[in-house]
């Protein structure tokens, strides 16, 4: 029996459906998630299947959505809320940073907030301004939040199940350019623990470190490099916080060379963090500086210009080329 093919939107939909069905405390709400099934159809059919008490539309106010989720979690529920697009989570920033992230700590663990904030994020879909931000750094920098970014449809299913089951708040970043691409998804595979990276492609010459929408780009770069005789490995972080130092360092120590690939502007970003910690932890194994291939430090460009902004295969391979191969044995 072959596993079914699903888009990432369908995989997330399945994860929501299974979680709602299995746990009475799971509720899904946000803007346009009920009747419409979400602007990306991620919540399609859930309202019809589970009714208004489990899946509902809210007034148009993101701080309201997240703030209400905090209260519902205080009262025993597991809210899964959707921010319609990355930049539209910013109105909820105070609630996320000052409460979602801190209430558990504030109350010495007496109150835990099992909230999932789903954010369709990043670019590559030709969206107009405010619809393509890679906002992970804001969340990853905030202690108390778990930050997850799946790169495969199977991970989207599994990690979302894990996120909903987590006692802690999770910012769940869905690379929106993946929503409509099909892959095999076996929902019976055990749910992966949050915090474990995975080596998507082993490689001995250098390691590409990526997450979310940059993973397939890194894989494409590695495939291209292979045709040119260079063996690049690719790590998919899956979770940004917690960070899997073990897997990352093991690979980089083996290859001695690393390039971090991420779509967000590079300055003070998650890519900076990865470069800094790899630099600190693998110093004596490094044959070359850790390079970052990221979005430029500019606002996300208009549709016709976005491909110049996004880290692509060529830019990654250019960076790999600078890893001082002339010194290599």
């Amino acid at each position, binding site marked *: 029996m072959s596993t079914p093919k699903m888009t990432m939107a369908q995989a997330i939909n399945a994860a929501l459906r299974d979680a709602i069905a299995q746990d009475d405390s799971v509720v899904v709400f946000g*803007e*346009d998630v009920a*009747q*419409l*099934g979400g*602007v990306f159809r991620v919540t399609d059919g859930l309202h019809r299947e589970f009714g208004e008490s489990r899946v509902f*539309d*809210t*007034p*148009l*106010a993101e*701080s*309201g959505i997240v703030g209400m989720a905090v209260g519902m979690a205080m009262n025993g529920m597991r809210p899964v809320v959707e921010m319609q697009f990355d*930049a*539209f989570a*910013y*109105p909820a920033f105070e609630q996320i940073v000052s409460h979602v992230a801190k209430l558990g700590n504030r109350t010495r663990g007496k109150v835990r907030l099992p909230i999932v904030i789903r954010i369709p994020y990043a670019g590559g879909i*030709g969206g*107009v*301004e*405010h*619809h393509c931000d890679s906002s992970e750094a804001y969340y990853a920098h905030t202690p108390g939040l778990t930050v997850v970014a799946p790169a495969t449809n199977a991970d989207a299913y599994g990690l979302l199940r894990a996120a909903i089951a987590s006692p802690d708040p999770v910012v769940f970043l869905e690379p929106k350019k993946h929503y409509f691409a099909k892959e095999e998804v076996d929902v019976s595979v055990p749910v992966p623990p949050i915090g474990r990276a995975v080596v998507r492609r082993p490689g001995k010459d250098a390691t590409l470190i990526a997450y979310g929408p940059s993973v397939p780009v890194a894989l494409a770069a590695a495939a291209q490099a292979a045709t040119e005789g260079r063996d690049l490995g690719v790590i998919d972080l899956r979770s940004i916080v917690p960070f899997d130092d073990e897997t990352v360092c093991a690979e980089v120590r083996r290859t001695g060379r690393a390039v971090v690939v991420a779509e967000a502007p590079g*300055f003070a970003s998650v890519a900076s963090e990865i470069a800094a910690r790899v630099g600190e932890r693998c110093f004596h194994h490094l044959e070359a500086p850790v390079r970052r291939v990221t979005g*430029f*430090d*500019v*606002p996300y*460009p*208009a*549709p*016709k*210009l976005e491909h*110049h*902004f996004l880290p692509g295969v*060529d*830019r990654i391979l*250019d960076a790999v080329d600078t890893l001082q191969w002339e010194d290599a044995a």
Partner: protein
Amino acid sequence: MSQLKAALTPARLLDESGRLVRGATAPDAETLLEGYRGLVFARRLNEQAGALVRQGRLAVYPSSRGQEACQVACASVLEEGDWLFPTYRDTAAIVARGVDPVEALTLLRGDWHCGYDPNEHKVAPQATPLATQLLHAVGVGHAARLKGENTVVMALCGDGATSEGDFHEACNFAAVFRVPVVFFVQNNKYAISVPLARQSVAPSLAAKAIGYGMPGIRVDGNDLPALEKVLGEAVARARAGEGPTLVEADTYRIDSHTNADDASRYRADDEVNDWLPRDPLLRVRTYLKAKGTLDDAREQEIADAAEEMAAAVRAGVGAETPVDPEEIFAHVYATPTPQLAEQRAVLRAELEEA
């Protein structure tokens, strides 16, 4: 409480069959004819943009079909130095204000985030993050007041946007500082798929004005002369230093949210059909025809002019305009940082290589 009454019962001048309502003063016919021309242009623009989307020339278009009277009125009541703060749905209002339609469509064509110079016609960039622009409008008005300038600011938003915190803060700041701003809510009954009933259970959106200490007026949003009267009075109040007004237009979004949306998923055709006879164009046309102000020749002249505009839009949007990749670095700061200069060099090298 006459204040509450004005906030609840929509003001009206022309009824749905194009007749003057009882007791109403007839609007000036030539002005109304000008308005009718605006309506025809706005409708034509909506249609043309929709066609360009279907041809793949525009990425997306949020249509204001059914709301054309609002689009025309909010622009026509403004004077030259006044400002307009539009949303993504208000392209027709921007064009009514004098912005070149092709420049206005730059955003939706994907060339850049804003295609016109906001200072030229005093039209802010179309706002995407909902309700945020209302605060900018308040700021422009407050600065004008501090500088002793006679500017009035027209700030647009939808029914859904009234739920955002920024709507509240903008109304409150405007009232407290007596800012010369008119908040004009086009209540088209939907925020994408979410109906008004899920947005608010207040007796009306205009009634929110009471909580800020400013007048709130409800008006038939498909009645051009009524809109021009109500908005004109609000502008006059603002200009006279009497502070802000909240105007709610009772209207309807005939099309889907954008072409990417499928309204049949969340509303019945019957509801749309109920609104079709309330069409803002028909009403004015019937009235002007009955009056004799709009004869066949004039109608033809208007239709031709609108067609000319549409042709220009087709040509302009269809033309191949080069975009400069390096421009993404050019405007982030007045002077690029050393970091951006470095990054620009990376891109340039790639482009030269390619």
